[in-house]
């Protein structure tokens, strides 16, 4: 399945928005954190997991989804949220802890929930899998259209929740697609030291579903495989497991010294940065530089607007901490 030009440009734009967003977040995150790096300080406190380099998976998958479809995401959720269409301003505001944020500042970066586009995420590894099955089940019971996609990391595929959800999906033939972002690291632990198999797609056979591995961190390749899987789910033919190779260009979280990375790994990864690669590909396919420059500029201003919105928004009253426990 090949993207139309429109779809290609959509993917490119979302990759660029995502990267620019992370760059802006990174910058804001570091404010107040020098000379001494203390997570508690600055306009964005707490842990921060950036998605730089992992954009292809998110856009290749979400290019096939509409607002009505469901995405359950991970502790590293920004690229997934952006590709799913979460409002960038409210997302930025949430990360800045503001009243205009998706939850008014209660949730934060690992807890972005946007019912308008059926997006949610969680900081607990593997937790995306079960809720995606449930949303898919909901559509099945109600005979309503919709596919659920659960994103997870390759490290999360060793969590029990993954197994239980895949078995449930396979047994009930649910319209759900599990997408593993294989960046080859779970914090400092390499995939090979944590996973008994080289590729997680082989696990699909244990749940009676097709499995695919997509090498190369290539948005087009992911678009292709995800497209088939999502179409299959829409037709009521059941779940699919996809593992896609991707690269984590950043540390696990901000402040990570990354001493565990083999020498040269980062340089090699930067050389394969998927964004310039895609730009080249688009140019080769006949897009004009102007066209792409415009997209990049639009991305810049979208991100700039979102960050400005976030910065200029007010904090909710501190006593709001006590509300919204129950609805």
């Amino acid at each position: 399945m090949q993207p139309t030009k429109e779809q290609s440009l959509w993917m490119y734009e979302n990759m660029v928005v995502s990267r620019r967003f992370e760059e802006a977040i990174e910058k804001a995150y570091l404010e107040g954190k020098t000379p001494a790096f203390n997570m508690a300080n600055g306009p964005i406190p707490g842990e921060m997991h950036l998605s730089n380099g992992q954009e292809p998976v998110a856009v290749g998958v979400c290019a096939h989804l509409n607002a009505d479809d469901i995405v359950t995401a991970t502790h590293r959720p920004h690229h997934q949220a952006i590709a799913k269409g979460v409002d960038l301003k409210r997302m930025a505001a949430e990360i800045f802890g503001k009243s205009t944020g998706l939850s008014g500042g209660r949730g934060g970066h690992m807890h972005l929930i946007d019912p308008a586009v059926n997006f949610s995420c969680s900081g607990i590894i593997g937790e995306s899998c079960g809720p995606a099955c449930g949303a898919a089940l909901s559509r099945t019971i109600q005979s309503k259209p919709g596919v659920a996609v659960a994103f997870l990391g390759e490290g999360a595929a060793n969590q029990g929740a993954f197994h239980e959800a895949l078995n449930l999906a396979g047994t009930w033939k649910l319209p759900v697609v599990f997408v593993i972002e294989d960046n080859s690291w779970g914090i400092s632990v390499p995939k090979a030291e944590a996973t008994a198999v080289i590729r997680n797609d082989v696990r699909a056979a244990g749940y009676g579903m097709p499995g695919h591995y997509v090498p190369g961190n290539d948005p087009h390749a992911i678009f292709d495989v995800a497209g088939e899987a999502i179409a299959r789910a829409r037709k009521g033919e059941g779940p699919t497991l996809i593992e896609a190779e991707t690269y984590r260009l950043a540390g696990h979280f901000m402040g990570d010294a990354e001493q565990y990375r083999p020498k040269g790994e980062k340089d090699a990864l930067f050389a394969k940065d998927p964004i310039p690669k895609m730009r080249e590909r688009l140019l080769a396919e006949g897009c004009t530089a102007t066209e792409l420059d415009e997209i990049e500029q639009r991305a810049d201003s979208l991100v700039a607007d979102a960050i400005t919105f976030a910065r200029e928004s007010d904090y909710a009253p501190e006593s709001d901490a006590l509300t919204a426990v129950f609805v």
Partner: protein
Amino acid sequence: MLDQPTNERRLTIARAMAEAMQQEMQRDPRVFVMGEDIAGFGGIFGNTRGLFEKFGKERVRDTPISETGFISAAVGAAMDGMRPVVELMFVDFFGVCFDAIYNQMAKNAYFSGGNASVPMVLMTSTGGGYSDAGQHSQCLYGTFAHLPGMKVVSPSNAYDAKGLMTAAIRDDNPVVYMYHKQLQGMGWLGTEPGATLNTPQEGYTVEIGKAKVVRAGSDVTLVGLAMGVHNALKAADKLAEEGVNAEVIDLVSLVPLDRETVINSVAKTGRLIVIDEDYHSYGVSGEIIATVTEHDVSKLKASPARVTFPDVPIPYAKHMEQFCLPNPDKIIAAYRKM
């Protein structure tokens, strides 16, 4: 015991629960039931009997033995607009799936600032007394009530059981519904007759978050829930023979906790005994005592007391388990020491 019309049907808690689910499923197509052996089998403790025959396997689903899988699926379904009722067969199994319960079910409303809701019921059996040993006899009331974001209720009788289940299903928030096995009215578990009560046919709700004074008295306040209420009532009957007038409070709900009803009662009686089948320390009994004393310690005429399960795993042997369980005699002994 409760001030209800008397010319109605006597139901067990098991039947009362099933009836509430059935009526709510009829009323609201979003309601469905999931769990292990809850379809054709009708629930190990009888509480889903008849639902499968009536609604079929789409809405009454047996699950794999994958509690994390299907409870987190319920969270996903609830956030997608359904109203699942899921069963965790024994509360003792919560350890295999508690993340789905307390990190997802209980917190997602908050994480969304109230923009999303998780309207689901997690029903689970509690309690021992029939020698099912250390992994099948716990109450764990305190464990669930300690963590914010979920309502926690436990009925002591069929009337409340039906009304609480109806209220729980209609609630837009997650509700943990803990039913005590020995109150279910299943003969094979040994059953407390006082739990089988007249129960109206038509749907009704019992308010979540409101305790009930189930026996009025002036000399001592006995506070409990589920089986604890029956132990308290039996102790109160015996104490009455000696002219001691015990007030008995059925907490009904642990979250929200109706602190006022307890405080008001102790303000009147000056004496407090908490009865709890859950473990002694860091649980319900401590919280009730703290609630009363932090409010106004001067209201207490004697040191408060608790009759609880000691801090040991539930032993298997009958004589050992009975030795550990709360009972009316222990309540009376606690009163005598005051």
